[in-house]
């Protein structure tokens, strides 16, 4: 495949301060079209702040953020028809069924006939591996894994170009987490999606991501997994030297051989 990189997200000189505490200092990040980028970092390194800045939910102190050529400004509408977000807790509207939750963005952004809307929503619900029984349920009647899937269906409702995932596998048991990783890989392979994924889960990092961005020293280091494990930064060494990470890496390599 010819490597013609186009940046769907570009961040220049991002500075985020909370009082005296500087979280990001001149952060630079470019996300390429159709890649899956994993974002990792210790607690307090500003993973969520970065995500919220990109989404326009947090006003950075300095810096410029562009998503799909559109400059992001705090609390102003971004390219919201072209991105989908999976929040950590799912953030499904608790008063609506799963079906209605998925239909909601479609209803808000189009004049489609009700039947069409409904069928598109059902398509998305099937796509994330839920069935119609689950579609008729309210979020509080679903298990954690199903809630994440339902939330993913809602994020995909408008055929987004970019998908943001905030800790997609947190709170899931290992089997559900692996299934969710597989679902994300499957969707990425079948839809033209750029995925930005914040995660703590080394398994999903090695299983799914094309590149990894590590938040260290108020900045960010981005590279492929192969390269980043060789980076001399102490936190990176500690993170990827952790037995769990080593195991996940071996597992990912074994999978490639098969």
């Amino acid at each position, binding site marked *: 495949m010819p490597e013609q990189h186009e940046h769907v997200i570009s961040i220049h000189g991002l500075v985020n301060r909370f009082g005296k505490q500087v979280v990001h200092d001149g952060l630079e990040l470019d996300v390429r079209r159709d890649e899956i980028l994993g974002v990792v970092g210790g607690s307090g390194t500003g993973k969520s702040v970065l995500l919220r800045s990109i989404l326009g939910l947090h006003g950075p102190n300095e810096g410029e953020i562009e998503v799909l050529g559109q400059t992001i400004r705090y609390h102003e509408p971004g390219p919201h028809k072209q991105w989908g977000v999976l929040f950590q807790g799912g953030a499904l509207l608790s008063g609506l069924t799963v079906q209605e939750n998925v239909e909601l963005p479609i209803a808000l952004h189009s004049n489609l006939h009700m039947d069409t809307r409904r069928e598109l929503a059902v398509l998305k619900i099937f796509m994330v591996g839920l069935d119609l029984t689950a579609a008729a349920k309210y979020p509080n009647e679903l298990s954690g894994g199903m809630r994440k899937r339902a939330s993913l269906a809602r994020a995909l409702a408008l*055929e987004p170009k970019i998908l943001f995932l905030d800790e997609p596998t947190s709170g899931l048991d290992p089997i559900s987490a692996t299934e969710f990783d597989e679902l994300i890989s499957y969707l990425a392979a079948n839809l033209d999606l750029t995925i930005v994924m914040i995660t703590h889960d080394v398994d999903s990092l090695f299983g799914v991501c094309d590149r990894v961005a590590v938040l260290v020293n108020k900045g960010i280091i981005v590279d492929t997994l192969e390269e980043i494990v060789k980076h001399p930064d102490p936190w990176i060494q500690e993170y990827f030297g952790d037995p769990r990470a080593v195991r996940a890496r071996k597992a990912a390599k074994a999978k490639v051989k098969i």
Partner: protein
Amino acid sequence: MTFLLDSDGMSEYLTVERQGGLLQVNLKDHWIFANLDTLQETLDDIELEAEKRVRFVCGGLRDFDLAGAWVLYEKSMDYEELDIETDFDGFKASHFKFLQHIIDIAAQEEYIPGFFDPKPSHFWRNGIRRIGHNTIEAVDSVGFIARAVLDGIKRPSRLVVGETIRQVHATGAAAIPIVMVVCFLMGIVLAYQSARQLEQFGANIFMVDLVANAIFRELGVLLAAIMVAGRSGSAFAAALGTMKLTEEVDALRVMGLNPNQILIIPRVFGLMIALPLLTVFADIAGLLGGAFIGATVLDINWFAFTERLASTIDVNDVLVGLSKAPVFAFLIAVTGTLRGMQVKGSAEELGRLTTIAVVQSIFLIIVADAIFTVVYARIGF
């Protein structure tokens, strides 16, 4: 024969060619979610002339997504139902994977017929069922309250005492200003309205009797209770409801603490202490309102007011009002906490039950007040 459709929108996304028994649909431009409306209409506008085969060709397709693939697939299914063969041709791998994806999903999942059909309504059956349901719920609530109160009385703990005092402050002391203002204004209203009638007989001084009796026996406690129902009844329901939603109630139970004891008892007893005290303040404010109008408008000076007051009111009148307060407080606290504990699931439920808590407690207060009035009138209290 090449046949180009150029009526409204038709030429924008596709062209149609007819070759004998084959209808060839050449797709072009953007087949994406944003154009879905037009795409559907355009496809539906294609007219068949006894063709037995339809071929969708991806010629000038520039952009294609799942939604675009879906309308195409749906259309092809429609044709299949009419016994018309369909096939897809010339799709690039990246385009075809969308179609393949839809076909995969369609093959996996069986569409449940009638899933979205409106449910038949059984008016009578549902009505009777609801009556039964509400009856059971009412009985259940009484049992729940009885158990909660018994739990609290049987094993009082130090935690409860502190929390009760906090509730007395939150529901009573904090409400003093607003309750006093409301009652002061009510005193003014009563004084004015009664004076207008009494003036005709030159019996202005009886205004004192009217205001004092109304405030002491009825309005002081009633207004205080209604204000408290609005302030604290809703607060109880919302606080307990949120605790239910965030599993705090479950956490208490798991730690071996009885939520009834920790959450309900302090609120019930706290309010039962606070409301009688609040009623005293309400009574004073109401009288002040009456006296204020007497002194400024009606030519009844403060001295005349207090003199008349002393001769017309005795302790019983004050006790009548005060005796209602604990009952009203019990009703408010129990309704609020009970509705709060009934919250489960969603944020909307929380709002609904909070509203119900306030409406029902005010309703119950007025029902109880009516019963009190009748009973007291009968026994001459």
